[in-house]
């Protein structure tokens, strides 16, 4: 069987989850590789969650939230952006590669963009191959 990447996506309740919903109700196709986890805010995504996703065998992690300035909690996504930049360096030094982490802003009306970004990201991870961090038994 050909390799299918496992992707974990962290979605914020107010915008990107709405976008995923929108993509669904509008019947927009996107790869089924993504596993969605809903958060109240992208600012709730502890860097540790991203780490744990990789440790538990994810090949790629997507963090998504409202556009800057549109956060339901005013500045939650500012924190997300800082953590994303920090995590990219970390994953790079660790040897996992910063390409396996992606941050996207999707508003609730951007079902199209969400589907597009998931497709792009899945293709990229498929090209990169399995995460070097994966447990040996999987």
């Amino acid at each position, binding site marked *: 069987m050909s390799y299918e990447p496992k992707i974990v996506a962290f979605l914020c309740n107010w915008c990107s989850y709405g976008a995923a919903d929108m993509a669904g109700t509008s019947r927009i196709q996107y790869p089924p590789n993504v596993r969605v986890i809903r958060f109240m805010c992208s600012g709730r995504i502890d*860097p*540790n969650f991203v*780490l*744990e996703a990789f*440790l*538990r065998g994810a090949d790629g992690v997507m963090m998504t939230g409202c556009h*800057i300035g549109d956060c339901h909690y005013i*500045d939650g996504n*500012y*924190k997300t*952006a*800082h*953590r994303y*930049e*920090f*995590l990219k*360096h*970390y994953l*790079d*030094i*660790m*040897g*996992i*590669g910063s390409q396996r982490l992606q941050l996207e802003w999707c508003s609730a009306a951007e079902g199209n963009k969400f589907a597009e970004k998931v497709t792009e990201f899945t293709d990229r991870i498929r090209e990169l191959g399995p995460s*070097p*961090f*994966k*447990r*040996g038994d999987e």
Partner: protein
Amino acid sequence: MMSDCYWGWSNRQDIRERGESGGFVSSLIESLVGKYDRVITIQKTGTVFEGNVVDVSDPSDVKSIQGALHSLCISMSAYIKKGIRTAIVLKPCDARAVIENMKRNHVKRDEVLLIGLNCGGTLPSVDTMKMIDIEFDLQPDEVVKEEISKGNLIFFTKEEKFSKSIDELEEQEYGRRESCRYCDFKIPSVCDMACGNWGTPSGKNITFIEVFSEQGRDALDNAVSEGFVSIKEPSEKLAEIRSKIDKTMKKLARKWKGKVIDPLMELSPENRLDYIKDALSPCIGCYACRKACPVCNCSSDCKCMQMDPDDNFPIPQYHAVRLLHLMESCVGCGNCTDVCPVDIPLARLHQLFSRTYEDRTGYRSGMSVDDIPPLSRGDLPEGY
């Protein structure tokens, strides 16, 4: 920030002769007793490989204060508690740890007086005893005094003086602790004042003092006006020598970083991950590194302590999280390597992350209370 340099010495003849470099720090400590709730420094124990942390409450304790010991690596920052006004003598990495704790509101800046000591590196005590036996042909308990001067490690017995080049010793895996070799923070400019024997005339029992803050200035002025210490302007030539020593040490540190840390970054990502995996594989999960770490301070909320290092992940989640958190806060004190019972080069791993992060972004831990740690930032990020 103001910065002023002085030569200083103790006014008490006995302290001046007995103390290292003129007993300036001992007498400064004496002048601070009563003005601070705690005045913390190191007490003599009779050997150069050990010292006790002591709260000097009685001025007569001053006699037993120990000068700088190279093979004593106590993390002094642990003795500072919020709400207790503390004056403390510490080495540069401890000072950086205190600054990191201040950033996270565990210590208040105006509650502490940091008396920094210049530090060219510390020695691991057990390995040093072994080295004294093998390389110097001495019994460790014969040694009454040690000194690092002009790149030489010097041990004094009651009768004689034995000297060897540190570079040569380090070729043979003796000498300074690994984390000290590539540490490039030698004069603790984050302290209220930095004291040391760099830039002093030899044999004159004088300490070189650089004052960095208003608080340090007050403490110094007080000690002078109350007659504990004397100060005078240093000669320009020797002040220059001091900054030259600092520069040479930093250059050496960069050389060591190029030898130990940079090659790891030159590995391919897969090989680097394998290196980290292999290095961490002997972990037995004692949490000693977490407990010894001066900047790790989640206290009772600590998530790491609930993670089992034996969790079958490729890298124990405990270490993965610690590597992540310390990437923004590791001060390179090397305590984790010291306490590890299975000799994992933890300081090297943490420094690999934090020094590389520093090279890429310019953010350096423990340098200023006003720097906001990357993971605590909440302002509008650049480029967004």
